[in-house]
């Protein structure tokens, strides 16, 4: 055999030479960024990577460190307390949508102050409270909620609002009782339940926002149908299996299905259709366990099927048909506005009925003595947590809004003035649309904070989340698993689940929730 000269070493060295020449002028830059990169890697990324690794271990430092594969994740998916803790997170996220307004108003008010010095002083006044440690603020608020000596009950008693609450404590459950026949009758019969009614409103809004359904391509229809039916199928498997379906298979499959369908919808129908999956997710929650059961027997004949499941799709079709009908008789913008109005009205009516019939259904009997236990009663814990921090003017948020407002060119204001837009119109037509980027940033911050925070709940309610664990949030549950039960590996796995969720939500916010100015 003869030796055949080989060329690869030469080729490799040539490649290295070329790389060296190409990056020669960048080497100093690499050198400069090296310390920062190293620090970030060691202090920023290493602990996170370690969390990922430890989530696969039964880790109880310093002695127990045993590899257990995906067991923690299986436990996490089957942990009812972990998942029920997201209920409060969801409520807090919805509440945040309302609680961000005072901050926006404060930012606008500051921005509109014409006297620079006064504005500066007020800006400083906004920043000064930031020096007060968060713990102190928490403890002050905890004392506010003291039933006997707290300022909130004293104020409510002094202003007579306590009697108002006491009156509501009688009237609201009575209203819920009076609404019951309507809920069980027409609402359940026609829409399945109140969630169904709200979903109809949401579908109408979707139809208004997402353009002409006739333009949807055939491939997209497949995705749309898949996205609409499959979550219900999974839901059925869960409820019909009677616990026989292994969570180890079901949980990751559901998650994958949800993400896959979302991706498909967005790719074929456009970014805005990301909302569809969330609507369907809401529908699965709203109709959980009753997809093949009916309600409101007297009305069944009207829609020809004893299934909430079919009724929902019937309504999806009806709303799309209504949308197309309106589009066919009115011009595009007018049709869009009409659909938005109708959708909003239906949604709001659904929301109000939900509030009136499902939230305050039994008297708390906390207000008659004038000493409601805001943090000690299971029904008052969540309202107390929502009210916490009133008037909800977050300094950082205000500064972010202010930065956005200051970027609005003066000629936009002048043009608006020439068009005869008043101060209120200026807020909703000029300022708010132009600071939506900042609003989005704040929403992302708020979402991340709501999902990860636990300190407030720990201080106010203790490690079990207060009465009936109503104040349990995922962060607090993670903390209590790690530091009270010593299950660090499990806490790492919970953290990983949370991380994936936050990452997903942030990606969705950034990629698909577009701001059109």
């Amino acid at each position, binding site marked *: 055999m003869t030796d055949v000269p080989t060329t690869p070493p030469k080729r490799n060295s040539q490649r290295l030479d070329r790389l060296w020449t190409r990056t020669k002028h960048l080497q100093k830059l690499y050198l400069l960024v090296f310390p920062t990169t190293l620090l970030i890697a060691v202090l920023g990324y290493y602990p996170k990577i370690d969390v990922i690794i430890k989530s696969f271990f039964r880790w109880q430092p310093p002695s127990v460190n045993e590899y257990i594969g995906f067991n923690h994740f299986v436990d996490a998916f*089957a942990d*009812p307390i972990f998942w029920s803790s997201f209920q409060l997170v969801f409520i807090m996220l919805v509440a945040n949508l309302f609680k961000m307004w005072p901050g926006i108003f404060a930012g606008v008010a500051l921005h509109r102050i014409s006297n620079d010095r006064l504005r500066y002083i007020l800006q400083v006044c906004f920043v000064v409270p930031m020096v007060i440690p968060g713990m102190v603020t928490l403890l002050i608020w*905890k004392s506010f909620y003291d*039933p006997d000596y707290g300022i909130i009950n004293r104020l409510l008693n002094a202003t007579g609002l306590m009697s108002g609450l006491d009156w509501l404590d009688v009237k609201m459950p009575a209203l819920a009782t009076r609404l019951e026949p309507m809920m069980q009758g027409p609402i359940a019969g026609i829409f399945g339940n109140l969630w169904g009614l709200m979903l109809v409103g949401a579908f109408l809004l979707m139809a208004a926002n997402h353009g002409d359904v006739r333009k949807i391509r055939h491939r997209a229809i497949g995705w749309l149908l898949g996205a609409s039916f499959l979550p219900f199928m999974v839901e059925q498997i869960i409820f019909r299996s009677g616990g026989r379906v292994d969570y180890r298979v079901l949980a990751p499959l559901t998650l994958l299905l949800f993400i896959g369908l979302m991706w498909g919808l967005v790719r074929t129908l456009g970014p805005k259709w990301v909302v569809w999956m969330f609507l369907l997710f809401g529908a699965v929650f709203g109709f959980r366990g009753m997809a093949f059961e009916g309600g409101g027997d007297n009305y069944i004949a009207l829609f020809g099927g004893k299934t909430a499941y079919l009724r929902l799709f019937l309504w999806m079709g009806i709303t799309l048909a209504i949308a197309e009908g309106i589009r066919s008789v009115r011009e595009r913008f007018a049709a869009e506005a009409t659909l938005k109005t109708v959708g909003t009205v239906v949604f709001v009516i659904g929301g109000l009925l939900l509030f009136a019939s499902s939230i305050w259904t039994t008297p708390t009997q*906390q207000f008659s003595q004038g000493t409601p236990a805001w943090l000690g009663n299971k029904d008052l814990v969540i309202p107390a947590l929502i009210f916490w921090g009133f008037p909800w003017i977050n300094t950082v948020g205000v500064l972010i809004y202010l930065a956005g407002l200051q970027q609005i060119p003066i000629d936009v204001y002048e043009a608006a003035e020439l068009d005869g837009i008043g101060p209120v119109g200026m807020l909703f037509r000029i300022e708010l649309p132009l600071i939506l980027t900042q609003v989005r940033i704040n929403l992302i911050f708020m979402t991340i904070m709501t999902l990860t925070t636990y300190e407030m709940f720990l201080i106010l309610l203790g490690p079990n989340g*207060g*009465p009936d664990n109503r104040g349990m949030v995922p962060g607090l549950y993670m903390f209590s698993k790690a530091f009270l039960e010593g299950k660090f590996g499990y806490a790492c796995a919970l953290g990983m689940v949370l991380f994936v969720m936050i990452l997903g939500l942030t990606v969705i916010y950034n990629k698909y929730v577009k701001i059109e100015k």
Partner: protein
Amino acid sequence: MMKRFNSNWIGLFLLVTAWGYSAVRFAGISSAQALEEDPDEGKKVVRILHWQLEPGYREGMQRIIDAYNNLPHVEEDRVEVRQMAVTERVYAQFLNVHLISGTAPDICEKGMSSILGSGAQLARFFEPISGYVQKPNHYNKPEYMPGGMSEDLLEALDPEGDRLPDAIDPELADYLETSAWSETFTDGMLGGWDDTLQDYIAVPVSSWGAMRTFYNIDLTADIKAFLEEEYDRRPRAGWLTRLIEEERMVPDNAPFESWVRTPDVPDSLGRFIVFCEATMQYREAKGVDKLVPISASSYFTGTMIGNYIVPFTNAIAEKLDVDHSSNISHEEIIGGWQTGLWSFDDPHLKDGFFDVSRWLAKYYPPGYLGLDREQAARRFIHSRAVFITTGGWDASTLFDGAEGKFEVGVIPAPVPIEGERWYPYSAGRQNEAESKLGAPMALNKESNHFDWAVDFLRFMTSFSANQVMNKEAGWIPSVVGAEPVEAMKPFIPRTEGVKPSMQVNLSNVRIVDHVYKGKFPLYQTGEISYEEFVNDVEESYRSDRNGVDRVWHETFVSNRDRARQLERSMVVSRLRGQLQGWDEENTVKHNNILEYSLTILDGHSTKAIFYKYFPDRTFPEY
């Protein structure tokens, strides 16, 4: 044309000036420090970490630290002890982080952290001290005892002259001087013993005594007078008739009548309820705003109801002790439930413990679950509550707070007596003889001044220093013969009653405790019925992945971990035996660990109990 002044220059000027000033100050301080001698240079600093922020404790500890720092041999070696007090809410995190990072103080109070509960975890960070505790404590020699100590030491320890006696009983002095250090503790140093290591791992420096109920003597007298009026009223007050005739809280007999006619505090559970109801009526009648019978909070609720677990569950516990250990384990509790040995319908639970807990909750302040420990103590101090149940650690807070306002009395928790509603379900008062000493101080293995740390602990638990510190703190001393302050005498454990380990405490059965802990307060406050409470709890017990079957598995895993820790300890012991020879101490220790390990059998003891209950089932695996 004059150019307009740019105001930004002012900002720049201020910035440069501030930077320049900082630079000059920094340079000045650095050079001054370089020239000056470091006050800590050459010093041996011994730090002691604890979470006792109750009034008096830090002052008491500081007093003995100062006295120790001024001892001639300590000064000569430039040793200085410093205390670090960290709030209990963050103590566990603080200790864990510093132990793992190797920066923990030399002496740390053991507890709070579940990670450092026992066994190998403890041994990894803290030094077992069996080698030290067998020798006498030299700080119990006559030169450190009352009557024999130097003027300087006496002045440092007892400047007011009210913390130490002039002299002590010679027999006691002799015992303390000659006995092993461990024998000088009232519990034989059991509070510092770790079963899994078969070693002393900490030095207990105080005792909190047993749980007691504090009461406002002045208010009690007023309410008793009111109760007497109501008792004598004809027709008798409706609320009293209801409690006596319908609720059968107390028998309407001569002893009850004579109790009503005295200013005495309730001495039985039935009378306690009658008194609490009288307090509610008194509040209405006299218009005493915000007065409640019992001051409670999320913290104090447990202390109150905790008094009744043993009396009411003892009878059930007797049925559950399948391994005859006189100690009811989690396995025995859940196995008993699964096989029907006990149920929530058992009258000891339904009509006893749970009924009592609901009745007591009627007399707590509104929204007590949202109140914290400080708020509850404040309510008692402000005479807005007659009773509060807690341990000796809160005694000084309550006594000091009430000083000048009202008199405070202390009683053990009242239990039912014959003829009362709950008497048939109660086994009587809990025995407190097994109470261990508290505030155990452990020695950090990484300590740079280990011997001095041990020396300080010896000083801290010498007769004189321990009595001074605990009198200052208002706690019970841990040393034999040392006297507590008068007010702490009611906290000295009572030795009669039911064995405390024979109890069924459902809130302690991990894995399935979350639902129980969440729903129990709702049942207590009347927000859910007993049936709803039981349904929720039993549903959680039956849960596929997080129910009682999981408890079996987790207990097995936990016992296996413990067995492995014991094996590690045995390996160390064997190695020591091979290298240094098998002395008696090491032999006993090795054999004890071996014996203890055999009772666990690598976790298979749990499986053995499981198969005793369920011979035909396979052991749950997850």
